């Protein structure tokens, strides 16, 4: 019996944003035995971004930010495909995380210390106090477990849509970037160029079927 080592990869199943594109590169956080649950990576309470442009965030695409000589990816999860944070988190729990990396990104800046920071336009609710909720805090934040706590907590994400909620763009998750996955392009072969570019990153690049 030949022993082969198959790398863990994220699911190629249809996601909120559709199927992954042949030839595309994706920052990927796969599921695996001994892994940690998605709750371990949630930011609770989320960190509000008052002015996205100051971080270089556009309505689409990703931004690279540098902190203490390490570059991190900030990615805006669009409401078009993920209307709520919960829809994204629930998908991540089932399929792992996979976020498109633009081919124009400087892959050489991605290192094992880089984080994938995810933002969502509805991650924070400024008037959370108006939406009392008895659910336990999914991140088990001590302050959120205290009796009478009524401020912003990740538990509200699973109660959306909340009428009259004053949503604010905020960072809601911080994942490591264990690998970059490149989807094979059987017809056009475009994945070869993508693999070459992504290989400049300091994390493994894995070719996946879809």
């Amino acid at each position: 019996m030949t022993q082969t080592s198959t790398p863990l990869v994220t699911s190629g199943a249809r996601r909120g944003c559709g199927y992954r594109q042949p030839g595309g590169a994706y920052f990927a956080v796969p599921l695996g035995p001994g892994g940690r649950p998605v709750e371990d990576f949630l930011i609770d309470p989320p960190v509000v971004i008052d002015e996205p442009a100051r971080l270089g965030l556009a309505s689409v695409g990703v931004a690279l930010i540098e902190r203490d000589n390490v570059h991190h990816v900030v990615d805006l999860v669009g409401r078009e495909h993920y209307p709520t944070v919960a829809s994204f988190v629930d998908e991540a729990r089932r399929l792992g995380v996979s976020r498109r990396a633009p081919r124009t990104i400087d892959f050489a800046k991605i290192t094992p210390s880089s984080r994938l920071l995810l933002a969502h336009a509805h991650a924070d609710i400024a008037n959370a106090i108006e939406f009392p909720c008895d659910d336990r805090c999914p991140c088990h934040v001590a302050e959120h477990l205290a009796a009478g706590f009524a401020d912003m907590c990740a538990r509200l994400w699973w109660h959306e849509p909340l009428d009259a909620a004053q949503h604010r763009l905020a960072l809601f998750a911080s994942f490591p970037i264990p690998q970059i996955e490149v989807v094979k392009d059987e017809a056009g072969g475009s994945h070869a160029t993508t693999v070459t570019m992504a290989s400049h990153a300091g994390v493994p690049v894995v070719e996946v079927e879809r």
Partner: protein
Amino acid sequence: MTSDSDNRQLELLPPVAPSVRRAKLRVEELSGWEHAQPSPRLLELIRKLGPLEPIVVADPGSQRSRRQQPYPIVEGRRRAKAVALLAAEKDGAPARLEALIVSGVGTERTAVLAALALALHASRDDSPASELAAIEAIITTAGETSQATTIKQIAEQTGMPAQTIKRRLRLRNLVGELRQAFDQGKLTPSVAEAAARLSGEQQAVLALTLEDGERLTLEAVRELARSQRTTAVGQLPDSLFAERQTPWQATVLGHIKAAQDAIPDTQREGALARAIAHVLALAETA
């Protein structure tokens, strides 16, 4: 889902070919060229050879005298400005240039003229300021039609790529002072595009630079963005960038929820699913 207004087809091009006549017009009889910025190359070319190609203008109509109603330029603003500038160099020699005057059904409508301008520009050099003005005119005309639909229709009917239209529209993020400077040709397209990506606060700083009479360069805009990004990133909490120690209860609950989600729909009523639900309930009170 699309609304009824999204399904409304804009009529951006004339239903029939417009009538065209040729005439030599004085620049004073034209409108829309005043803030155009002809390149040195264009100026030199016209200085040597004259405007070899007629500009395109719309017939303002015969119901009013032309003194009150100038010919709006559909295409050729920079050539008209170049002719005006070169005439001024010759101590006020009459500035005249050949024009194709289009008239007929539809040409009285702003959106049609704007679409004609885009169709002509689509096969020529970029002129972002006039393109943005034309796109905005069409969007205004489109009323309640969603912007995405209008962009699609403009692209289909004029040949201008949708990406270019979106890129032009991003210039609408410019704050008042910068937009005005861009419209007047005091801001190059590349500087304007870079500035449009900045926050209102950052753009206000750039506007002050302009107010002081200094020229805005692409490098200056990028440097400002860099320095403010560094500040903004520095203000983010450290916890975002490091592995955190999660309470064990959150980890256990997360694993149980993951197990629950992994059960296929066909087995959701089975004994295992019920057992996991029971464990989940226990864990939630831990």
